[in-house]
């Protein structure tokens, strides 16, 4: 009796559940379309504005001395971004991966402290990182691309640690044990089995950090300072980056400078896109992908 009652109750609820299901499917679909549309709108707008000015000249010339003048390009910013973010990546990737390996593979008190500090560092506003490097370095040795790279490296570090640790945790324990059981040492197991298996996910995490660093402006104002006048490839001196030039040109109020800023924005997006796709192709052989 009780069973038949609950069965009919379940049956009675069925049309309502199907209706809820249909409504929710439509709602989720609309939200997805909305998010994608917003993203495409931003991209299309930047592309439309940027393409008005983007050309070979933009990629090979420096800006005119007088920002109200038309012409010139962001060659110095492109070179600066590549050099500074390149150094920042070279600094933060080995340290970040090593820290993540320690956190996941060796555990212990130090590892827990490292995990906590990573979470704190991720929440740190980037201008604070810039001020920190300014106080410790720039105040003594002056503005330089290298100081900017250190600031960006500090911003990238916790992102890389977090992403790498997440992916390492996804590598099955069974793989580690299978390797240990073959008489392979723990260090070799990590280097030859765990990290290669996680390679694709780690690459994705590093690319997210690189993309973030490419767009950072505030910490660079306090460290690399910027250099709108000529192309500087020596990181020991003050340097421009794409983000700094977009900022300095966009705030001028001259239509000519703002056109350059739009073209610079488009260039920045394209560089990040090319790097992401390239890294994905390179990292494809790994198996475990980032959860994000």
């Amino acid at each position, binding site marked *: 009796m009780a069973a038949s009652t609950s069965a009919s109750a379940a049956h009675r609820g069925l049309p309502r559940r199907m209706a809820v299901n249909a409504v929710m499917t439509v709602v989720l679909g609309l939200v997805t379309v909305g998010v994608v549309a917003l993203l495409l709108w931003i991209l299309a707008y930047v592309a439309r504005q940027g393409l008005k000015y983007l050309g070979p000249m933009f990629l090979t010339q420096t800006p005119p001395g007088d920002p109200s003048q038309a012409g010139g390009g962001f060659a110095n910013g492109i070179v600066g971004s590549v050099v500074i973010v390149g150094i920042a990546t070279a600094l933060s990737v080995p340290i970040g991966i090593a820290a993540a390996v320690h956190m996941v593979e060796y*555990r212990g008190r130090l590892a827990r402290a490292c995990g906590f500090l990573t979470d704190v560092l991720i929440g740190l506003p980037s201008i604070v990182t810039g001020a920190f490097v300014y106080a410790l370095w720039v105040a003594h040795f002056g503005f330089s691309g290298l100081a900017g790279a250190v600031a960006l490296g500090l911003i990238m570090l916790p992102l890389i640690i977090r992403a790498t640790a997440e992916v390492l945790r996804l590598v*099955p324990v*069974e*793989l580690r044990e299978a390797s240990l059981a*073959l*008489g*392979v040492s723990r260090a070799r197991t990590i280097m030859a*089995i765990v990290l290669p*298996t996680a*390679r694709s996910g780690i690459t994705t995490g590093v690319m997210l950090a690189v993309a973030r660093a490419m767009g950072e402006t505030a910490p660079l104002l306090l460290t690399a300072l910027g250099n709108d006048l000529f192309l500087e490839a020596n990181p020991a001196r003050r340097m421009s980056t794409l983000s700094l030039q977009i900022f300095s040109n966009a705030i001028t109020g001259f239509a000519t400078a703002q056109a350059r800023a739009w073209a610079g924005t488009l260039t920045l997006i394209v560089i990040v896109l090319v790097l992401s796709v390239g890294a994905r192709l390179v990292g494809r052989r790994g198996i475990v992908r980032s959860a994000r």
Partner: protein
Amino acid sequence: MSHVPPTPDAAAARIDVVNLTARYHGRPAVADVDLAIEPRQVTALIGPSGCGKSTLLRCMNGLHLTVPGASVTGQVLLDDADIYAKDSNPVEIRHRVGMVFQRPTPFPTMSVRDNVLAGLQLGRRLGRGAPHDEIAERALTKAGLWHEVKDRLKAPGASLSGGQQQRLCIARALAVEPEVLLMDEPCAHLDPISTLTIEDLIREIKETYTVVIVTHNMQQAARVADTTAFLTMSAVGDPGRLVEVGPTERIFSSPRRQTTEDYISGKIG
């Protein structure tokens, strides 16, 4: 399946478990085990879930201690040398005592060939001039897999079927030329045909190696094991203990303990 005669370089070792208790975070999972494992024989560990038979097996190559919070007291003698002695080298022990796991675990980034050679290459036990291809072929032949994969050596290890992956893992373990092979429910995730193939394989490799197999499947123990050890625990959460050990036929036909008979006849477990 091709028959491989015993090679003189692989000398089967004996294992003596002496008064062994293995713990996780201080709680014993298996306690007070004394067990002699004879060379060139298959010894099966049977018992209900949670009786510590896998833990006991993992104590025999020291893998138990790689788990956080794990500890062990007592001795495991590998040819009379305690593997838990202070001067014992776990890497060396695992080189001598190989292991095959419940789930096939081919290394996902490696080809079939590289999987077989993984233990030797990662352990830096192969010189530059070593005959890699011959070693791989020999191990795959021993595992009864050579004819199925000889044209797919460069394919990813994970592209094989489940049964083939498990035999690949056996080939990988054998390539290191261990003296003992531990198998932790090696057929638990395989279909009946693959299971029979692996059982044939176990009967062949015992001519060269000492084999210890954990199994849930009593028919499997009866089919492949020379000696069977039965473990159980008095209640859930209590440590598992060794109840009875003897020739497989005797254990299954006339067990001396009532709990063994109850388990074998399906009354418990």
